C-alpha cells in the first residue's frame, strides 16, 4: 500500500499594502517578528500615531458629513473626536505611552481637521473604501507551504470624484491642484502619519514606495464595479502641519546640509531664513516642548476631567509659515495606465521575496537568516530586535545593559 502525499492547503495569501508590504520594505526581519509573529513593539509610537491620525480624520469626516457640523471646529469639538479615537485605540491595546506623543498627535489632528477639513471633506465622495484584488505570484515562488498561483492585495483609501471637484467652491486650493484632465475621473486620498520623505535618501526609499503604493491602489480601484479611471493620488503628510524636533532636523538636513536640495518643496525667503536658524533655536524650542509635555501630562491626569481642553503646541521661536507647511503636507501623484503598469511589478516582486522567505524558513527550520534585514538608523534605534539582529550595519548589535 503506497500512501498518498498530503497536499498543501490551497491558500491565496493576503497582503495589506501598508501593514505588510511597506513594513517588509522597511525591514524584512522586523516584519517577520511583528507582523507575522504578532509580537507588539515595545515603543509603538509610529503604530499609535498612524492609527490615531487615520482614526481622527475618519471620525471627523463622518461627523462633518452626517451631523453637518461646520468647520473649523473649536478645541472642544476636536477633543471630542480625539477622545472617541483614543478610547478605540485603548480598547485595541494601542497606547501612546508618552505624553509628548499624545500632545503632538492631538495637535496634528487639530491642524489636519481645521486646515484640510474645509477644503478636503467637501471633495470626498466615499470614505474608507476597502480595496482588494488578486494578482499572480511571481513564477519562481516555491509552493512549499501552500498551493495557489495568486496573492491577494488589500488597502483602504478615501475617494474623490471629478463630479465633486467640479462643484468645489472657488478658492479651494486643494481642488485646484486636482482638477483638469479627463471628463470623469477619480482621485484617491491617503493620510500619512509622517513627514514628507526626502527624495534622495539612499537609506530611505519611502518617497518611491509611496508612489508604488498609490499606483497599486489605482489598479485595485480600477477592478471595482462603478469606479472611474484614477487620475491622481493625493497624499497628505500630516507631520508637516506641526513638525516635531526630528522632522525639523530632517528638513534642515534635506535643505541646508544636502546638495542639491533633497526635497521637492523647499523654503524660500523668510521661511528659509527661519529654517537656517533652526539649530540655534533648537534648545529654546526643546525647553518649550518639555514644558508643554508637563502641561499635557497635567491636563490628561486632572484638568481634562474638569472640562479643560488640551493645551496647544507652543510656537517655534522662528516658525515656518502655515502656507509653507500646508504645501509640504500635500503631494499629488499623477496616475495613468502606463505609470500603473510600470509600477505594479514592484510589489509583485516584494510579495515574491516574502513568499520565498516563508519557504526558506520552512525548509531550513531557521528564521533569522531566512528574512532580509535592512538596517536603517531611524528604524534600528527603536527596534526591539536590534540587540541580536545580524544585519551588517546594525550598530546596536550587543547585549543590552540594565537601564
Amino acid at each position: 500500500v503506497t500512501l498518498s502525499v498530503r497536499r498543501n492547503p490551497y491558500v491565496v495569501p493576503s497582503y495589506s499594502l501598508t501593514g505588510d508590504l511597506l513594513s517588509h520594505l522597511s525591514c524584512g526581519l522586523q516584519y517577520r517578528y511583528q507582523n507575522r509573529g504578532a509580537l507588539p513593539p515595545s515603543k509603538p509610537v509610529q503604530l499609535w500615531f498612524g492609527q490615531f491620525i487615520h482614526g481622527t480624520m475618519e471620525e471627523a469626516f463622518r461627523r462633518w458629513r452626517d451631523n453637518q457640523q461646520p468647520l473649523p471646529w473649536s478645541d472642544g469639538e476636536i477633543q471630542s473626536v480625539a477622545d472617541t479615537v483614543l478610547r478605540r485605540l485603548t480598547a485595541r491595546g494601542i497606547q501612546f505611552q508618552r505624553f509628548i506623543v499624545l500632545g503632538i498627535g492631538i495637535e496634528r489632528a487639530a491642524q489636519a481637521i481645521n486646515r484640510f477639513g474645509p477644503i478636503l471633506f467637501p471633495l470626498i465622495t466615499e470614505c474608507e473604501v476597502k480595496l482588494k484584488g488578486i494578482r499572480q505570484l511571481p513564477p519562481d515562488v516555491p509552493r512549499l507551504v501552500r498551493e495557489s498561483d495568486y496573492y491577494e492585495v488589500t488597502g483602504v483609501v478615501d475617494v474623490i470624484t471629478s463630479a465633486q471637484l467640479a462643484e468645489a467652491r472657488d478658492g479651494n486650493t486643494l481642488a485646484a491642484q486636482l482638477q483638469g484632465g479627463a471628463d470623469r475621473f477619480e482621485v484617491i486620498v491617503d493620510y500619512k502619519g509622517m513627514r514628507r520623505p526626502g527624495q534622495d535618501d539612499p537609506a530611505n526609499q519611502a518617497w518611491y514606495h509611496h508612489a508604488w503604493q498609490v499606483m497599486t491602489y489605482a489598479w485595485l480601484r480600477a477592478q471595482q464595479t462603478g469606479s472611474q479611471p484614477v487620475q491622481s493620488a493625493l497624499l497628505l503628510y500630516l507631520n508637516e502641519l506641526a513638525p516635531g524636533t526630528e522632522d525639523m532636523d530632517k528638513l534642515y538636513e534635506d535643505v541646508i546640509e544636502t546638495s542639491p536640495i533633497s526635497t521637492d518643496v523647499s523654503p524660500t525667503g523668510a521661511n528659509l531664513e527661519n529654517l537656517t536658524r533652526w539649530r540655534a533655536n533648537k534648545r529654546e524650542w526643546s525647553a518649550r516642548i518639555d514644558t508643554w509635555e508637563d502641561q499635557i501630562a497635567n491636563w490628561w491626569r486632572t484638568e481634562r476631567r474638569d472640562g479643560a481642553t488640551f493645551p496647544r503646541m507652543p510656537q517655534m521661536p522662528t516658525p515656518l509659515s502655515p502656507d509653507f507647511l500646508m504645501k509640504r503636507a500635500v503631494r499629488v501623484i499623477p496616475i495613468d495606465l502606463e505609470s500603473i503598469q510600470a509600477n505594479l511589478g514592484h510589489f509583485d516582486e516584494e510579495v515574491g521575496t516574502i513568499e520565498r522567505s516563508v519557504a526558506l524558513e520552512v525548509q531550513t527550520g531557521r528564521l533569522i537568516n531566512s528574512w532580509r534585514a535592512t538596517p536603517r538608523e531611524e528604524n534600528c534605534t527603536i527596534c526591539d530586535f536590534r540587540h541580536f539582529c545580524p544585519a551588517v550595519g546594525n550598530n546596536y548589535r550587543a547585549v543590552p545593559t540594565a537601564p
Partner: protein
Amino acid sequence: MIQNRVVSWIDFRHLVTSPAPGGLGKPLDDDPDQEGAVAAPVNQSLQLIAGPGTGKTTSLTLRVLKLVFVDGVAPISIVATTFTKKAAGELRSRILGWGDQLRNAMLRDGLLDEEVIRRIDLNQITTGTLDSIAEQVMNDFRAPGVDSLVPLEDFIATSYMRRDGLFAAQRYQNPDLRAYATFIDGTSFGLNTKKLTDIAREYRDRFLHDQIDVTRFRNTRSVQYPGAAVLVDAVGGYEIGLMQRLVTDFAGIEAELLARLERGVLSAFTRQLQVVLIDEYQDTNVLQEQIYFSIARAALSNGGSIVVVGDDDQSLYRFRGATVELFTDFARRVHDGTGASPRVIYLHRNYRSSTAIVAWSQRYATLDPDYQAVRAPGKPALLAARAGADEIPVLGMFRASVADLAQDLAALIDGVFNGTGFQVHHQDETLTITKGAGGAVGDCALLCSSPADYAGGQNRRARLPLALRQALADLRNPIQVFNPRGETYSEVTPVARLCGLLLECSDPQGRVEQTIVAMPQTVRNVFRAWRQAANVFIRSDPRGPESTRNGTLASFVDHWQRRTPQGRGRWPTRFPLMELIYELLTWMPGVQDDAEGLLYLEPITRTVTAAQNLDRLECNIFRDQPWADRSVISLIRNVFEPIASGDTQIEEELIEMVPRDRLGVLSIHQAKGLEFPLTIVDVGSDFRSNHAAQRMKRFPAGGSRSHVLEDELWPFSRTLQPPTRSQRDRAFDDLIRQYFVAFSRPQDVLLLVGLGHLEDGDFQPNEIENVATGWTRDRTWPWRGNPDMWLI
C-alpha cells in the same frame, strides 16, 4: 442586485468539468447531489447535509461562482461564513483562485468580453467567521461617534468577571452561590474562586448564546437555589463593568450585532444582501441562528436564499454552546424564522478515504441504536467514491502498556517514513505500507482526545503523546513531533525561563509576591518553578550575540535586582515590562530563531498588551515607592498569574504550517476539517481499568457541565425547548461524534491504538467499556471477538 447574466449554465458546467488547465476538472457528472447543490436557482434555499470528505468546500465554492457567473448575482451581495479563520481563508482562496481560472477560460473561449469581466469583482464577496464579519460590519456601518467594538482577550474577560462579578459584594464567599455551583458542577471538590469565575462566565455566555430570559430564570430557579440569583447578579455586575469600560466579550459582539440588526441600524448592509451561505452549521448556537435568520430575511426579500452546510455527525462544540438540534431541525426552524423552504441535499459520496475506511466510519456511526434517533432524518450511507487507490483494512495496535505501544508505533512510523516500508500480517496475508513519492512523516498524524503529554491530577502520569515523542527521538534516524499543545503552556521551557527571568528582575526573591495574600497555591508553585528554571538558565551562562564578549545574563539580572544601572545615569522612574522581555530575548537564540519559539513568546507579549488596560500602571516597573511595589503587584496579578493559571494559550492561527518533517499530534477537535494519508487514532491508551474517574471520556454515567447547563437553562430560552434526551444520552452522542470525526480523517490507512491484549488473534482490550472501541450505551459490545480489523 442581479447584474447581467454572464454565461449559461451549460457553458459554466462545461468549464467546471473540463480537465485542468483549461477547466477546473471537477467531475460534477459523477455526483448528481453535488451538481444539484451547485445548480439550484438563486432563490432556492438549501440545507446541504455533507458527510466527511464529500467535497463540501468544492460545492460551496462552485455554488458561489455559479451564482456570480451564471445568475449574475453581485459579489457584494454574497456573505459566506465558516467556523474558523483557517477554513474561511481556504474558502476565500478557492473562490478567488477558481474564479480567476474560470474568468480566464471564459475570456479564452470568447464567452464574455473584457468589459463584462471587469464589472465582476469577486473580492467583494464577504467571507470570514461570524465574529470577524460582525466586527467588520459594525465598524463599516457605524454612525459617527459610535464606538467600534473590540472583543476582549479571554483572560481579561475572566479577570473582569472575578473583579466585578465575584469579588464585588463578596459574592465569591456567598454560601448560596457556592451551594448552587456545587449542584452545577456535581461536586464541591476544588470549588475555588477560579472555578466560580469559570461557571459565571459560562452562564454569561449561555445567557446570550441560548437567548435566555434571565429574569424568569432568576425568579424561578432562586426558589430552589437562592444562589442562582447571586449568580445572575454576578453576571450583571460583570456586564455593567464592560459597559463602563466600553468593551465587550465575544458573546457580547454577536449579541450587539443581533441588537443592531433588529433595530434596523444596519440596513445599509442588509439592503445589499442576496445570498447567505453558512458552513459548519451543526456547531451554531441560538444567538448565531437568530443573526443568520435576520440577515437571511433581508436576502430572501431581495429574491435570494440561505444555504447552510453541515453534518450533525460531526458536531463537536457543545461545550462552547453549539446546539446540534438547530441543524437537524433546520427546515422547520428556518421556515418559522424566515419563511424559507429549504431543499435538503445529502452529499454522501466520499472522495477522501479508501473503501475500507469509509465502510468503517459508516458502520461506526450506525453501531449504537440509541444514537440513530438524533441523526439527521433520512441520511443515506456514505459511499466510497475515491478512484484508483490501494486498499488496506483498518488496523488495530493494542499493547499491554503505553511504553510498549509507543515502541511499536515508533517502529511502524520509522519503517514507513525512514525505511523501505512496514509489513503488516493478518492470518495468511501480508501487506507493506510505504510512503508515497515525495512523502514525509507529515503525512501521518496521531489524533487523541487530548494531545497533553501528561494526565491531569496529582500523579502526572505520562501519556501516549509523550511516550511516542520519546520513542521517536530514540530512533536511529530520530523523528520529531509537532505538538505545541503537548506541554502545559506555563511549563514549556522557554516560557518558564522567560517568565522566571522577568520575575527575578522585577521582584527579586519574591519579596513583593510574598505580600500578596489571596493567591492560589498552584500559582505560587508555578512561580517557584519559573524562578528555578531562570536561575538554572542564568547559571548555564547563555551567550548573547556572537560579536560581543562581555555582558552576561547573570550580570544583567543582578543589576536589575539591585536597580543599579550598568551604564551611567540614574535608574529610570519607570521601565516597560515589554521592553524588558525583548532585552532578555537577546540571551535566548532558540526563541529568536525558531518559529515554534516565537509561538511560545507571543502569548506572553499578548498578555502584557491586554494587561496594559487593566490599571494606570500600564505594565511598567516603577522605581520609587509606593509605586514600585504596586507596579510589581500589578504585574504579578495581571500578567504572571493569568499565564501561570493557564488562562493564556498559544495562538494556533499563527502556525504557518505543520512542518512536513514532523509527526503531528493533534486533538480530535484540532483535526476537524483536516485529512492525513495515515491517521493513528488513540482509542484507549489512557484506560487501564473501568475506573469511574475517566468514565466521561469513554463511557459516561451522566452528563458533563455543558449538559447540566442545558437542562438548567433551556426551559427559560426564548427559542429552545428543554432537552428531551437524558444528560447521559447526550454525553454518549457527543463521544460517538468525536470518534466518528477521528475515524473519517484518514485517506489511506486508519490505525486504532490503545491498551489491551492479543490472545490468539482475539481482540480483548481489557474489557473496558469504551465508546471509541465500539461499546454501545446498553453495554453490548458488537466488536467482541470480531472487530473487523487487522490486529497487528
